[in-house]
């Protein structure tokens, strides 16, 4: 299994990631939707990257929370893509980005309701069966609840339990939601099924008003999110960590510095635990 800190593979930095010799990320992650059904120059670059790094795939358009039927044509293409690139983890957002057969290309919040839990859980099971691989769902950032009948943690937990899927824990999203909805981030994390966390995302965000943070992936990670990350990984088994950066992408050495910082926390927490386990055995 891949371990350590990886980096989002974006076109702006594709060549640099491919040519890195030192301080390489441990893996790369890309959205299948940005590369599927594509040939030419970019396909060549993706293949080069996939030959050099272990791969994770993080989807954008599955729209697991859509009211309508799953798009099996899309799933078929996705499966073909995974056969070629063999990602270690396939994750998607616990949200919907398509409604009434129209894509919107961003993440809308699913109403936290029992019927939505049943609906989404069934869809996750179908997707996992069809793709013959587990799905990890990501807790998304949201700016308002919509017709909620329960809290977010209960919603996520029940879906994970009912569907049997894994959890991609986005620590920055927890921080953003805790700020925007005025709840305690640590209590929220404690209430999730942490034994199902298979993957962690870390990113930066932007505060746009005194009471609102937008999850932009366009800034460096701030210290309170690093602190929350350290606190979180003390409570879970080792999993891969991804640094996401989609906008305002800085020079590679800045990204490498962020990766090193994450890796040093990982080493401190998880290597210490290994020592403790060895002592106890």
């Amino acid at each position, binding site marked *: 299994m891949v371990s350590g800190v990886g980096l989002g593979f974006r076109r702006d930095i594709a060549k640099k990631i491919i040519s890195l010799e030192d301080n390489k990320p441990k893996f790369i992650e890309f959205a299948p939707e940005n590369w599927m059904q594509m040939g030419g120059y970019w396909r060549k670059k993706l293949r080069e990257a996939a030959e050099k790094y272990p791969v994770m795939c993080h989807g954008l358009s599955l729209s697991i929370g*859509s009211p309508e039927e799953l798009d099996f044509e899309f799933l078929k293409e996705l499966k073909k893509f995974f056969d070629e690139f063999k990602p270690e983890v396939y994750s998607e957002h616990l949200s919907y980005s398509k409604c009434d057969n129209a*894509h919107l290309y961003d993440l809308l919040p699913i109403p936290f309701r029992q019927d*939505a839990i049943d609906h989404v859980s069934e869809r996750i099971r179908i997707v996992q069966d069809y793709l013959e691989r587990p799905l990890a769902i990501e807790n998304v950032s949201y700016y308002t609840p919509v017709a909620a009948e329960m809290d977010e943690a209960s919603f996520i937990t029940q879906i994970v339990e009912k569907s049997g899927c894994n959890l991609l824990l986005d620590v920055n999203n927890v921080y953003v939601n805790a700020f925007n909805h005025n709840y305690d981030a640590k209590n929220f994390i404690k209430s999730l099924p942490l034994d199902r966390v298979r993957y962690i995302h870390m990113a930066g965000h932007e505060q746009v008003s005194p009471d609102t943070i937008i999850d932009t992936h366009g800034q460096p990670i701030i210290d309170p999110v690093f602190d929350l990350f350290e606190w979180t990984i003390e409570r879970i088994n080792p999993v891969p960590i991804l640094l996401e950066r989609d906008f305002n992408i800085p020079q590679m050495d800045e990204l490498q510095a962020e990766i090193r910082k994450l890796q040093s926390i990982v080493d401190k927490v998880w290597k210490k635990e290994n020592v403790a386990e060895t002592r106890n055995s």
Partner: protein
Amino acid sequence: MLLKQETHNIQSKLADYCKTGVEVEIKGAKQERLHHYRRLTYNIVKGALNTAYPIAHKTIDEDLWIGMIDDYYANHKMNTPLVWKMPIEFYEFVVETGYADTLGLPYLDDLLYFEWIEIEIHTMVDLEIPDFKEEGDLLNDKLVVTPEHEILSFDYPVHKFKGAELLDKEGSYFVLIFRKHDSGAVRFINLSPFFAVTLQNIIEQQLTFRHSVEATSKVFGVNYDQSIQHGLAFANDLVAQGFILGYDV
């Protein structure tokens, strides 16, 4: 269906608001924050279209351009899950809606197609190239060309002029667009009607260059000897630019 109609309706309400910007009341939602969803989704669509159609974006009046995007986002159901492919649906929407006439921009359809096809050729799935030899007779051997290509036909020379310069230039224009096999770069070659037909015969009917020039000369009623001289120069250019890869084995 496990999802209740009520929940479905709530989801549709939010999605419709994102598409139209027409304010809605959603139970339990913080009204002052809903606009972020409209802004975020709209900016993705607008950004993708501005990137896909940079010339149209720069040369068409901003209000008209934004008006088309607003209409498209509000009234078209974007079908592709791949956001980079979505701009072709905008082109189709603009053609179906008849914006070229409505806005008095008769070159609009040609321009959008010209900009889209560059993306399509650059990104299209790699096609199989038949075996070929590098040495051969340019006029008398069957040719192997790069498979990712299209011969474009326009009413306006959108590959040469921009904006108002186009208005008095209605005619018949042909352009060869292709992806270079080695670098993946996209190239355009301006074609005369004569060589557009010649090339089409070579590609579709697998005629040799000489036979294709003969056939086209008959159709156009022009002198073959002169045409073949021009044709040889044209063929050499296609080799130099990387469209002709070699000779059929």
